[in-house]
């Protein structure tokens, strides 16, 4: 049952690769990479159960953080062509 879940997640990742290679727009590709990352996180969790070691879940957590940051960084770069831009206009409060 865990094996079947892993296989289905693999199939979903293959479909994401199809969209990544075919996607006409840049944003289709970013979406495919982001969604691929989500599926990778799930696959890592399932895989750590499959091989009976708990370390995979830690790696999945790390991968979740990395996936989010890399998506934002890619989009920021393609919008401003530099990473040296402040994204937040939050006013600094003097304590």
């Amino acid at each position, binding site marked *: 049952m865990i094996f079947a879940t892993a296989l289905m997640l693999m199939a979903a990742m293959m479909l994401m690769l199809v969209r990544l290679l075919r996607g006409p727009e840049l944003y289709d590709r970013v979406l495919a990479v982001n969604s691929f990352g989500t599926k990778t996180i799930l696959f890592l969790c399932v895989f750590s159960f499959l091989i009976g070691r708990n370390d995979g879940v*830690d790696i999945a*957590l790390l991968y979740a953080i990395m996936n989010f940051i890399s998506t934002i960084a890619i989009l920021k770069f393609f919008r401003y062509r530099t990473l040296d831009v402040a994204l937040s206009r939050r006013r*600094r*409060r*003097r*304590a």
Partner: protein
Amino acid sequence: MFGEGMGYAFSLLIAMALLWLVLSGHYDSTLLLSLGGGSAVFAVFLAWRLHILDDETSPYHKLPRFFIYWPWLLVEVIKANIIVVRTILSPVMVLTPRMVRVKTLPGTDMGKVLLANSITLTPGTVSVDIDRDEIIVHALLKELTAKEGFAEMARRCAWTWGEKEEVS
């Protein structure tokens, strides 16, 4: 003012310590526990130095309302999921994509963020842009763009972020 800041710092400290415990899984070694406590204190110090130690960073007094809001959101997400999956998997797909503007009820930034995130989290509707007090939403089907649904979500978000006292 000082007491309020201490409350934020203390709740953030507890959250960081709990996070450290869950991630490391060490409960018995005194050295490791003290190192973990030290890193939690250091994280709170960094947050204080960045001047982000306020109600957006550690909203501990709003947490009870979130635990009422999340189950309602979960039910909405499940309902929308069923509609979207049925549309995607049908052999003849009939889509009616729409761009609509949704009035936001919450006045503060975090209330608006909560509403926009809830709209995005519900499949079939994605918040694309925000224009003063309106959120531009792209919807997959025209059935998902009912004004009453968005209005109820906005009311509940305003209530969750403590801008209104009763839900309805």
